[in-house]
């Protein structure tokens, strides 16, 4: 009877990463001067679970390393050792190191343990331990011996704590030849027997080379508080093993455990290591707390398995709705099978129900994909801490609205732009402490990270109270690069918007943090690709605010239905600036090729959509048509269409699944009547139009 452990690997990794996050956030919140016991406990528990898990799954590199970490933590917890900033730093480094190790294992790559080895030596130095390769006297003795007798007499409730003697014996058996004698003398009478209790005791004999006592103790580490355990060297004869009985007993044990999954839940929290002295078994509260705080780090590409944890409430709503849907369906079925005109009212009623059910179901399914934004934001406190150290600045990060929900796909893609913006604020925004004092500001700079919902969008604001954007410097740089003409007068907003231009950095020197080319233009492009927008507002000497607005989901889009000839296209509502019927006197022709509309103070090129897409319109006369002014990447164009129809939310379907990407089209959707309608990619259409006009130019020339 053997269980394939690899099926649990994924869960182990996920839990370990969560544990590491708990450790990290705990360490960051830890005040070395007055360490909070609860905080240290949660760090310790996380480390301990990782150690236990990795040992179970045979990831000995991780287990060994965590063991040292845990020992030190235990001393801190017991109050025998104080923890200073250096230790915190070391712990943080080891969290990173463990994360690397685990990622490597998850991706089934060879892991580099040299870093772990370095850190481990540092820990051992702190602990005053001799490095493990210099074997101690005790070790030497045990190696020479190589045979052990283990008396293991667990207390009755051992199975309920989720511990499985059989598994321990397997582990022992891996070290050498194991013979097991089962002592069933304390077996209760059948009538009084409790299936969840363990009545056996075992005597084990382990023979092999290089078996250390510590190794055996480690296997029993989880249970030795709940059992009588005696490990002694052996030179005596080998007893007959009663494997069979053991086998039966274990099967029973497993059944008992399966019957009591709930028990196990709580048991999990009760598992405490052997050397615990000061701490009561952890109650469930801090554990849950930690679980909620836990956030998933960015997982490397190779390991992206795409599973999400969904709140049970969300699933329950869905199941309820499906139930109602089934009822409605059977009702409609009944009406349909025996239909007469007088049932029309009922039919309509049923259809209304159906519509409502489907709508709610749709919403709840979409909500499954929604995760709190803290999944992305949680890595920022660490980043700010490390960077402010590196930059020798004092910076405090205040995060608000971390429970704001956001589509998973959007969340994965927003991480990098956010990191970039934050780094920008850290590096360029906040001044050095001395400069801040000179400017009459508190020494510590504050960066606010605020996420909230507004309409169908999520807004993320990054505000710093730093030096703001230097208008003159930006303008000078822009003139130097030829982005802005010498005499052009620009408003503050226009100047500030210049930082989103490609290749624009005012950093005087390239640092490790920013000013290195991957600029704000990339940030803007990435956010545009998600259908969002980013803007900046700044006041010199007071601070800068970046505002990102993103659609809540990528699967649904607010669209404007627009007809050209026989075809109906969908314009994303976000990119429409305005729609107007044309006053022909405001249209002039530039170089006889491209028409330009004068709209207030702007000149907007006009693109007839029928020309760009090669379709037959109702009318080619401008005065009979409408112009929809759209904006993409700060370029406005007017698209000539025949009719504006309804506005509606549309579900985006990919054209590429079965066909290929089409220029000017970002996807397709299915309209109410079942026909397919194409969704315009405004940026693409603008590009096409540019090509079109240059083509026309060539023809004219």
């Amino acid at each position, binding site marked *: 009877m053997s269980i394939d452990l690899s099926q649990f690997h994924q869960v182990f990794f996920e839990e370990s990463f969560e544990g590491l996050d708990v450790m990290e956030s705990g360490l960051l919140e830890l005040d070395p001067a007055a360490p909070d016991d609860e905080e240290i406990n949660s760090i310790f528990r996380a480390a301990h679970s990782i150690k236990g898990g990795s040992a179970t799954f045979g990831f000995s590199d991780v287990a060994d390393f965590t063991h040292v970490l845990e020992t030190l933590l235990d001393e801190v917890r017991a109050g025998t050792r104080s923890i200073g900033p250096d230790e915190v730093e070391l712990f943080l480094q080891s969290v990173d190191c463990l994360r690397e190790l685990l990622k490597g294992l998850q991706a089934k790559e060879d892991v580099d343990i040299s870093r772990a080895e370095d850190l481990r030596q540092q820990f051992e130095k702190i602990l005053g331990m001799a490095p493990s390769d210099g074997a101690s006297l005790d070790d030497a003795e045990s190696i020479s011996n190589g045979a052990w007798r283990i008396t293991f007499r667990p207390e009755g409730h051992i199975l309920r704590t989720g511990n499985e003697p059989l598994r321990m014996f397997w582990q022992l058996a891996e070290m050498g030849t194991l013979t097991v004698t089962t002592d069933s003398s304390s077996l209760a009478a059948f009538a009084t027997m409790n299936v969840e209790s363990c009545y056996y005791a075992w005597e084990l004999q382990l023979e092999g080379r290089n078996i250390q006592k510590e190794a055996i103790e480690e296997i029993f580490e989880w249970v030795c508080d709940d059992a009588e355990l005696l490990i002694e060297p052996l030179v005596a004869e080998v007893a007959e093993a009663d494997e069979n009985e053991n086998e039966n007993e274990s099967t029973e044990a497993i059944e008992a455990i399966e019957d009591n999954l709930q028990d196990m839940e709580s048991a999990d929290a009760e598992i405490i290591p052997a050397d615990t002295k000061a701490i009561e078994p952890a109650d469930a509260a801090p554990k849950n707390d930690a679980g909620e705080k836990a956030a998933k780090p960015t997982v490397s590409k190779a390991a992206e398995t795409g599973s999400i944890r969904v709140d049970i409430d969300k699933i329950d709503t869905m199941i309820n709705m499906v139930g109602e849907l089934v009822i409605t369906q059977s009702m409609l079925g009944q009406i349909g099978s025996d239909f007469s005109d007088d049932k029309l009212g009922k039919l309509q009623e049923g259809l209304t129900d159906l519509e409502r059910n489907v709508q709610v179901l749709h919403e709840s399914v979409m909500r499954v994909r929604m995760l709190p934004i803290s999944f992305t934001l949680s890595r920022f406190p660490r980043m700010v801490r490390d960077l402010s150290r590196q930059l020798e600045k004092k910076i405090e990060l205040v995060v608000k609205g971390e429970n704001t929900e956001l589509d998973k796909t959007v969340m994965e893609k927003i991480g990098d732009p956010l990191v970039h913006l934050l780094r920008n604020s850290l590096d360029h925004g906040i001044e050095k402490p001395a400069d801040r004092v000179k400017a009459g500001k508190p020494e510590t700079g504050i960066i606010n990270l605020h996420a909230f919902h507004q309409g169908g969008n999520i807004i993320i604001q990054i505000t710093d109270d730093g030096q703001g954007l230097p208008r003159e410097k930006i303008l000078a740089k822009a003139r130097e690069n030829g982005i802005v003409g010498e005499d052009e007068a620009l408003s503050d907003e226009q100047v500030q918007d210049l930082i989103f231009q490609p290749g624009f950095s005012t950093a005087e020197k390239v640092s490790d943090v920013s000013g290195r080319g991957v600029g704000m233009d990339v940030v803007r492009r990435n956010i545009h690709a998600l259908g969002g927008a980013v803007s900046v507002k700044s006041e010199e000497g007071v601070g800068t605010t970046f505002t990102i607005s993103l659609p809540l989901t990528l699967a649904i889009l607010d669209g404007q239905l627009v007809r050209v000839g026989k*075809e109906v296209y969908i314009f994303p509502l976000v990119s429409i600036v305005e729609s107007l019927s044309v006053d022909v006197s405001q249209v002039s022709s530039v170089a006889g090729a491209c028409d330009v509309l004068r709209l207030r103070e702007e000149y907007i090129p006009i693109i007839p959509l029928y020309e*760009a*897409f*090669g*379709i037959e319109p109702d009318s080619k006369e401008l005065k009979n048509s409408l112009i929809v002014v759209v904006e993409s990447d700060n370029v406005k164009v007017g698209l000539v269409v025949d009719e504006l129809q309804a506005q509606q939310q549309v579900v985006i*379907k*990919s*054209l590429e*699944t*079965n*066909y290929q990407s*089409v*220029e*000017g*089209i970002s996807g*397709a959707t*299915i309209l109410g009547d*079942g*026909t*397919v*309608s*194409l969704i315009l990619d405004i940026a693409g259409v603008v590009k096409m139009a540019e090509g079109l006009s240059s083509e026309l130019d060539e023809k004219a020339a």
Partner: protein
Amino acid sequence: MSAVDIEPNVDEEITSAGVETDQYLTFIMDNEEYGVDILSVKEIRIWDSATPIPKAPSHVRGVINLRGTIVPIIDLRQCFGMSAIDYGPLTVVLVLQVETEKGHREVGIVVDAVSDTADLDRSQVKPAPDMGDKINTSYIKGLATIDKKMVILLNMGNLLNQEDFSAMAEAQKSILELADETTE
């Protein structure tokens, strides 16, 4: 061809059980008979209007909604350089599931009419004639004769990988000429 004519063929299949056979769906275009692997046919449906794709090549008639999936419709006549005909209520679309270079895809092809199904021994399928380097015939799986009539078996995956359909039209013409010669 009548059902009676097919009968001997079927018997032959049964007697030669164990020989590997493939089943094909045959259809007619411009009086020529073509076949595709029947396992790739997902459904046969009546032509209904498709949403045209801007700037698409002329053989791509547009996209349709197939139970929530967007499926492109390709006019095979135009691929093969045949004269276009008006689509009527009898025009048929075969929705096929094909493996292309870019993976697994669904595509609809417009044909004149569906004709029959046929079981063919591997040995009955003759390779496509070599047309020289200039003409790519990889979209032709082979040629077979059913009831003294040549059937061109198509490899739809390779067909969709084709970039240049004018070259295909050329190939098509030469095959048909060749076929005429052999039948005469």
